[in-house]
């Protein structure tokens, strides 16, 4: 009750200020103080309220973003959302590092059969299901112009790839909120993370193929086969170097962990951008280094090679909350309700097929391993989330396919809205059912009860 009351006072105040000084809200000073503070508090309070009705907090943060965003109440204009974008970069680095820290080699080794089964079968099933669905349904989607067969195949493949993408950030947020620990949560996180990396690599491959198909020339992907693994290993190498540097920091300085992490997150994102640009200029070969992968491998090496995981885990846990809250609230402002309104029928069908694919895959893998029926369902529920990377990659489609790309992009956004709302709720339920969630009135790390 208190939360809702404070929330309404804040919303009222902010509304009054917005009305009294509409022009002042374009000032950076106001965007980075008043708007930032308002988003932080409002999303946090909303999250506390959703926790009370036993939904994940992150759902509350998302809803706060949706409600306050440009689509509904309009408290946040697109430009004031853009002024807070720097949080996204930091948050992604933090999330990746944290995900890497959660992966422990000894546990992964013990579960290797399950993990490799899921990593191979889930993406394959989902890809095939969505590919088939779209290949046959594309001509019927909205007002899509008639497409040549080759392009239809490429587009279906691209969308199929995107359907594989999960949301490591949502998965991690729910795990942290439930303070879950154990084989189930760790394997879900691991599979989620690996699938995300897979998507990034596959997507650039298909996009290159698409370019070739469009131009009507045979695909010139010789460089690509080399480039993608090169990028992958270079990112891992950089992650190793970063982990070495960070473990050195713990040994030598040990202090101001939060500030150091912020610096690292900032430097990694900026440096990988700069390196990509440099390599494009110098070698004519745009190496795309994924900060996500660098940070994740750094976290993994810190935990498993250098043994300094605990320090960073605690540091991240203590500083996570504000970054998490703003990150998901911003993600909420990105969710495109108009898209959902326009294409909800196809979107529901699409999302349904994706979920069905996930369940079929999980059931078949776990049946092979003789897991009980209930566990098979739990894994199925854990792989619904979708966000972040998918939105970014989906944005490339209309740029590449001006004809019809917009419509597909809208469809994807609508599907992401659905998945992002159902996914965390289902995963939280699965975690509670698995018995790995500790305590029922959970908090994000560092939170009391």
């Amino acid at each position, binding site marked *: 009750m208190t939360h809702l009351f404070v929330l309404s006072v804040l919303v009222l105040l902010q509304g009054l200020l917005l009305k009294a000084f509409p022009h002042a809200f374009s000032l950076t000073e106001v965007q980075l*103080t*008043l708007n930032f503070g*308002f988003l932080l*508090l409002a999303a*946090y309070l909303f999250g506390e309220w959703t926790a009370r009705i036993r939904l994940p907090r992150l759902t509350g943060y998302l809803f706060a973003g949706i409600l306050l965003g440009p689509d509904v109440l309009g408290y946040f204009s697109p430009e004031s959302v853009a002024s807070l974008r720097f949080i996204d970069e930091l948050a992604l680095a933090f999330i990746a590092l944290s995900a890497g820290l959660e992966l422990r080699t000894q546990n992964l080794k013990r579960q290797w059969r399950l993990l490799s089964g899921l990593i191979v079968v889930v993406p394959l099933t989902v890809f095939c299901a969505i590919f088939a669905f779209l290949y046959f349904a594309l001509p019927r989607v909205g007002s899509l112009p008639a497409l040549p067969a080759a392009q239809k195949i490429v587009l279906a493949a691209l969308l199929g790839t995107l359907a594989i993408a999960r949301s490591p950030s949502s998965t991690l947020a729910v795990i942290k909120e439930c303070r879950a620990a154990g084989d189930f949560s760790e394997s879900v996180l691991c599979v989620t993370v690996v699938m995300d990396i897979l998507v990034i690599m596959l997507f650039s491959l298909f996009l290159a193929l698409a370019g070739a198909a469009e131009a009507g020339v045979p695909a010139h992907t010789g460089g690509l086969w080399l480039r993608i693994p090169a990028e992958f290993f270079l990112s891992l190498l950089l992650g190793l170097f970063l982990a070495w540097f960070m473990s050195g920091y713990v040994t030598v300085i040990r202090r*101001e962990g939060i500030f150091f992490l912020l610096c690292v997150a900032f430097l990694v994102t900026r440096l990988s951008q700069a390196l990509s640009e440099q390599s494009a200029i110098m070698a004519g070969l745009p190496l795309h280094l994924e900060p996500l992968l660098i940070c994740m491998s750094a976290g993994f090496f810190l935990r498993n090679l250098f043994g300094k995981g605990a320090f960073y885990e605690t540091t991240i846990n203590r500083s996570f909350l504000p970054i998490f809250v703003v990150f998901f609230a911003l993600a909420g402002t990105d969710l495109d309700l108009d898209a959902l309104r326009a294409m909800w029928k196809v979107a529901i069908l699409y999302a349904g097929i994706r979920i069905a694919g996930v369940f079929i895959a999980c059931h078949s893998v776990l049946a092979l391993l003789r897991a009980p029926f209930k566990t098979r369902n739990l894994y199925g529920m854990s792989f619904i989330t979708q966000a972040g990377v998918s939105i970014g990659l989906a944005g490339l489609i209309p740029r590449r396919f001006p004809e019809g790309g917009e419509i597909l992009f809208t469809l994807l956004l609508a599907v992401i809205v659905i998945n992002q709302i159902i996914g965390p709720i289902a995963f939280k339920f699965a975690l509670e059912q698995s018995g790995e969630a500790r305590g029922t009135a959970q*908090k994000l790390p560092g939170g009391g*009860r």
Partner: protein
Amino acid sequence: MKTIAGILFLAILALAGHRKSFVKLLPSRAGRFFFLTGTEFLLVGYLLGDSFLGVLDPATLERARPFLIVGLGWIGLLAGIQLEGKALRMFGRASYLWILLYGCFLLLFVSAGLHALLRVWFPADPHLGLAVSVLAVTALCTGQTSMALWMQQASKQKRPLGIVLQFVASINDVIAIVLFGVLIGFHQPAGGGFGLSLPPLEKLAFSLLLGTLMGLLLLMLFRARLGEADKVLIVIGLVLFGGGAAYLLGVSPLLIHLIAGAVLANFSLKSDETFHLLMRIERPLYLIFLMIAGAYLRIGAPLAVLLALAYVAIRALSQGAAGAMFLGRVFRDPAYPRAHALGWGLTSQAGIGAALAVHFHLWIAGPSPPLLLNMTFSVLLLAILFNEVLSPFGLAYVTKET
């Protein structure tokens, strides 16, 4: 990129510096008059600024403004939380009266002196009244860092004297914050194009209202049992929100959060926890403020140095006189044989004084201030520096055996 690098560099300096500063400089007998009280970072900032190295160029300083607004709110909250009624009542009611009289006398004397002085160089300047009142209000601020460091090396019997000095200094700091908040009500903020165009009194009422509201919200949110991360989030969120609202309305975030802090201190059992939470970054925050203030500094003419010296002299003399008249009365006690000299121990002007300097630059002077306001800012910063050097000698005089 350069901007962000500059800000990061500043933060690293502050984090590294706050562990090295706040100490007595030389262990020898002659060296007991030299402390590192953080104020030296004014000089560091000046060196980093456009005048020398250019790390903190105007673009960087412009980008740092949101941070400074939040910092002011943070400081205000910190200063407000100490105003717990129970603690305030530990000192007799009469002592507040005498301290108030001391403050009034100081204000009057300093403003009269400065008005006479500044009129010589800026006879018809429209900002004359503003410059005088800013310098007079900030004259009330009293840094306590050198005081505490001095008392550490003084004999045990002198400790109560230190407590009295710190008490007077704290009350004057709070008065200065309130007066500065009122002062801001009279002036349209430098950015222009926003801020309520209300009469000063109503603006003050707005500050009170907003401050109380912030305090009540904080109070309500802190009623639940919260984890560390939640508390940090709530405090950061409210300071951001309140600071931004203050900037928008053209009122003082220091004052607003001072009130919010006082509300929290008096109606919540958790003010201690909040206080420790705020204290955690007090020193680095202070050093960043000092460095940015130093980077803003444009000394320009030797006149600024001269005026600063005059300001220091007028302030010190008024403090000595006012101390003898009012502070000596209330603390006349066999335990403090030299109570009439108390005023000389209040020379240091750092702490809240530096925060008000930054506040002045952000809210009133603006990025390209008129000549007199720029002069006012320079005089204030130079005076803070000079006073910091003088302060141990004043303290030595106060604590000398009779």
